[in-house]
């Protein structure tokens, strides 16, 4: 038994049960988000189109992770785990892309 555990027993355990109301609200938000992203893709925003699409996708994903997956109500450890995953993923993407982008900068 570790200290997190003991703490968890008090504030998080007995397991926070999210009420269906929250789920319904999130569902609606996600549906709206989907509509929004499709609608946005029909407008010509040039450079901004992909950024908006990704922003909306990220917002939706965040909702799913926070509420459906319950990260909002879970321990620091879970939050840290999610954070570590995202961080490593971003490291992979950004450092690889950095190579590809700077390749075009000429030799020096």
């Amino acid at each position, binding site marked *: *038994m570790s200290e997190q555990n003991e703490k968890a027993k008090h504030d998080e355990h007995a397991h926070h*049960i999210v009420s269906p109301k929250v*789920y319904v609200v999130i569902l609606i938000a996600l549906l709206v988000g989907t509509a929004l992203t499709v609608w946005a893709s029909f407008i010509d925003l040039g450079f901004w189109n992909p950024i908006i699409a*990704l922003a909306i996708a990220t917002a939706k*994903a965040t909702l799913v992770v926070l509420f459906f997956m319950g990260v909002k109500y879970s321990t620091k450890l879970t939050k840290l785990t999610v954070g570590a995953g995202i961080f*490593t*993923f971003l490291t*992979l993407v950004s450092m690889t892309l950095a190579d590809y982008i700077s390749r075009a900068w000429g030799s020096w």
Partner: protein
Amino acid sequence: MPDSPVIVHGASEADHHEHPAYLRHHFESVEQQADAAGFAMWLFLVTEVMFFGGMFTAYLIYRNWYYPAFVAASHQLDVRWGTLNTLVLIISSFTMAMGVWCAETRRKKGLVLCLMLTMILGLGFLGIKSIEYSEKIEKHHVPGFHYSLQSFTDPQSDSAVYAEYHDKPLPLDMARHTEIYFSLYFALTGMHALHMIIGIAILGFMIFRAQAGAYTSGHVTFVENFGLYWHFVDVIWIYLFALLYLISRHQ
């Protein structure tokens, strides 16, 4: 007990016999067991993030390099099917969340119903995906299998898509890079679909067990963890939808 003095920890010895059957011997308490399982599931999902991460990286690089090809190729995907599938999956995520809630509040009927709905929606998703796939197969847009460039070098030949987007023909060398788009499209959605299939198989098993009341007696770890998995698959799709379908409807 032999030689050295012993301090028995807390109450662990005392309530040993009251432990429910599902508490495995090496855990101290039900909370510890549930905690460990949930944490393990999260770690597993993190590995999944990195697994898809490799493909996302490839996607971002080639999209940068071959933007016109990616745009033209993405026009081959039907936003309507994509939107529908997104909705289906989001709703299935909702029913799954409700399922977890039912399990937590010990509603057996509700749980079974929610799991069934989730499964049906999941199957629906796969059905739509297979419609989309078969269209790609017909048009020879599957990389490696007599891949055809016709829709891109001569967009007018592809009247349905042309009517919607009025794509200009791509030069041959750019058109060839649509194959990379479709490689990544099939790799990403295929891997995603594989996760769905595994999920549906587990759902089937869970419905069976739920009917026997396995998850509505307080031991909900399995349902909760499966829920995490299912939502994760949903999250991946949310990104796939934005990246594969909505690249650019203009140009």
